[in-house]
């Protein structure tokens, strides 16, 4: 049995209101850290830059400093 047209219209308006809140990022699911990150291009770009910088740093300074043997002075850097 189908519901009355008025009830359908109410459901439609409720769904549209919820989608509108999604569109404007007011929906609860976008308020999580991950949700906000996934929609913010500035954050994503900043994260990419940080990741690239860390990778570049790792490549440049990938030597592991060793402790000087007992009785010797540590190397001068």
């Amino acid at each position, binding site marked *: 049995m189908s519901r009355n047209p008025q009830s*359908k219209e109410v*459901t*439609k308006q*409720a*769904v*549209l209101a*919820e*989608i*509108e809140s*999604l*569109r404007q990022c007011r929906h609860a*699911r*976008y308020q999580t850290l*991950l*949700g906000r990150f*996934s*929609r913010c291009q500035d954050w994503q770009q900043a994260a990419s830059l940080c990741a690239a910088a860390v990778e570049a740093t790792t490549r440049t300074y990938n030597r592991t400093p060793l402790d000087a043997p007992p009785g010797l002075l540590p190397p001068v850097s």
Partner: protein
Amino acid sequence: MGSGTGLLIPRLDGVSLIHRLIADDRSAVMLAETLVELDVGTPGDWKRAEHDPTSFVRITLDRWIQTHGGPSIRRRFLLSAEISASPSDWAEQDQARPNRLFLIIEPSEATCGCANFGPTLQMLERIHPQLPATFFHLFVGALNGWLRIYDFRDAKDRVEMLREWAAQEPNADEYEIPDVTGSIPPCMKQEPLDEAGLYRLKKRITDQQALKLVEGVIALHHLAGQANHSELDDSTREQLSDCNPPLPCLLALFAEADATAACFDEEAQGMLEVEPEPNIIIPLDPADTQSVQHAFHTFGVACETIAAAGDLIDLMPGNDQWIIR
């Protein structure tokens, strides 16, 4: 830690049971909104989709297919439909038009449906010598406007190519090339009837099965023309420039395992060497109600045309073994 002397099972009250990673779904949100506004999407499906726009679009697409001949399509064709940000798996999204989506139909597996026209053509030839060619060309012409059909003309092209390759070999005579021309029924060499001639003939057909076939192919022809998927623009064409031609969705034979089938089997081995272009690509702007309405109308006509072709194959004698489900 448990307390007292008994065992205590840790409880998960208040802990979320489902975690969903949400990628950038702005296009899906816009499309879901437009679909509900247009009444293409059913508001009741929003709950089924667990309030997720991407799932809602998927459910709406499934429902649209179901109400536009889904069961008939699935009986004879292995197709899948999806909405994507790029026109093929290989193509990258056009950054200059981030809001553009594509409704795509392509074979869901590396195989295609099959229809044997031979017994039907024999039956129709007894009614009128030009009726078999008329039926074949109306059927294939209507469906070819939406899906790629592999028929004797593709096979002839393939044979031509094989002959050219073989001619360059020192032992050219040793190559066995399918005799496509010899496998074409003589009735197919007749000129097809024009529309007025076909209508005049239809009134005189007394054989009920033949009449149903003729009525069915006329209906298919008219249905296929109710919409056409517009030409793709230059930027989309550019995105597809490295793709192979679309995979055939139907193999049209004159007899089981005839020369056309042999050519298809041989040619099919290379069809997936490069990503093929989808059969149907309908661009749409999810924020534009007119664009979405046009896209879903076009998609509906495509589905109904494919379904009508499937129903017609059901009526054609000698095609029971090609039913998929």
